[in-house]
């Protein structure tokens, strides 16, 4: 399985709507097997959805996201885990192991917290 994270350096990008880079991680045997980076444009959700599907990525982890792209991604059958914050690789490792995000990695005031 593959998971995408909007990346800002080694962190999760704080705002999806202005993010530019995706960290794509391959998950095998409950751990991250490989990672790669790709650019994307957050204003083009259709293009992002096509890109994620082409790469075989069903899950996107991101920071704060406004309603419109969040709904559009969900409509395009991308599972969205938003309002996540912290070290992207740590978060991916946890997710690979437990299929969940630690509450410590959720943003304050997260609507999903």
């Amino acid at each position, binding site marked *: 399985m593959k998971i995408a994270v909007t990346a*800002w350096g080694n962190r999760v*990008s*704080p*705002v999806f*709507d*202005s*993010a*530019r880079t995706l960290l794509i991680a391959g998950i095998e045997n409950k751990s991250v097997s490989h990672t790669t980076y790709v650019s994307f*444009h957050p204003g*083009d959700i259709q293009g992002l959805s096509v890109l994620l599907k082409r790469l075989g990525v069903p899950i996107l982890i991101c*920071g*704060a*996201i*406004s*309603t419109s792209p*969040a709904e559009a991604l969900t409509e395009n059958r991308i599972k969205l885990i938003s309002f996540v*914050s912290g070290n992207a690789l740590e978060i991916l490792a946890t997710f690979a192991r437990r299929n969940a995000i630690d509450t410590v990695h959720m*943003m*304050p*005031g*997260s*609507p999903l917290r």
Partner: protein
Amino acid sequence: MDKSKIFGPLSQDTTKIILDSISDGVFTIDYNWEITSFNRAAEEITGISRKEAIGRHCWEVFRSNMCEEDCALKRTMEEGKPFISTSAYIINTQQKKIPITAATSLLIDKNGDVIGGVETFRDHSLEEALRHELTREVQVEDIVSTSSAMKNIFNILPQISDSDASVLIEGETGTGKELMARAIHNLSPRKDHPFIAINCGALPDTLLESELFGYKKGAFTHAVKDKPGQFALAEGGTVFLDEIGDTSPAFQVRLLRVLQEHEYTPLGGIAKEKTNVRIIAATNRDLSAMVESNSFRQDLYYRINVIRICLPPLRQRMEDIPPLTDRFISKLNLRQNKFIQGIDQEVLAALMSHEFPGNIRELENIIEHAFVLCPEGYINTTHLPGFLAFTPAPRHQPDTDPVRTAQIKVIKDALARNNGNRNAAARDLGIHKSTLFRRIKKLGIRP
């Protein structure tokens, strides 16, 4: 260390009282980018409580589009100088984009040592909503406009479309007469039948007649079989006759008969054929003046002029240039698989200073020219056609203070709704009458 205790006991209380009493959001950070104070307005604007915010990284709480690439606070900390009025947005806990302006400065303690940074931010949601209301573009079918003249036309378009009356569309070349005719057709009960457009000015008389009414076998040398005309092909739908002012008197007589009797005779035919089409005519000429000078039949003029729509030239609705430009760029991006983001301010100024004798068609051509030359990002003046690239200062300046304009409009509308009664208008707006009086005075609104 308790980061909320960076101030002394007395100054901390005093500062908290002051910060909580102002309507701008304020937060401070230390050198680890962790929030050390967070005022009440910041709680309200972000939706995050002070308790949750303090100790967290500022980007986790502030969540602005500036955080990643253009953090004003980072620039302040690096360069040691304040920045003011940076426009941005944040995403609050309701996942709403909140438009803000932000200002940053260094946080200095009583000894003059830099201990972090401070960011103040103002919620502009209300102003944005007002601005949006004021400049809201209206789209009817393929026509986009923010101008009041066009909005007035849009308002009556449903009634015009519902009726079966003939329509005369007047407007300079390139003002979108055919688009308007198509919009009327597409909104009408005839929308499932054909829309056929004929440029009367492009065809000589005999060809125009055979084109519109068709011909019978043997009508002329090469008429080897019957050919239906556009009236027959458009049965049940709409025929759009562009450049009606360019038709000959003889053709005008034949067209008048169709309009009066709803029947016509194909070229070379004997029997009359019934027709059920709606006629929409258009011209860039002054038909009433042509009637005066006997170059256009008065009876036909009255037949086609049951409903008249006058499309204003682009120079009289310059506010439509930004939405039209956006629309053309979006269409071209889609068609040519590029991602041009828009035009820069200098291009907008150049466009606003142009007279546009060719109207919207000319604007579309200019944008297409620039689009071809612009590889990515924003179109700048080097991408414009030569005649526009070095245009001097704009003749029409876009509204320099749309917020003020919006406020004036809201207050004037409230006063109009309440027959000029200021107390009633204040109640209507949900503000105290003294606030309304103060704003009327400040904005210079006259009764």
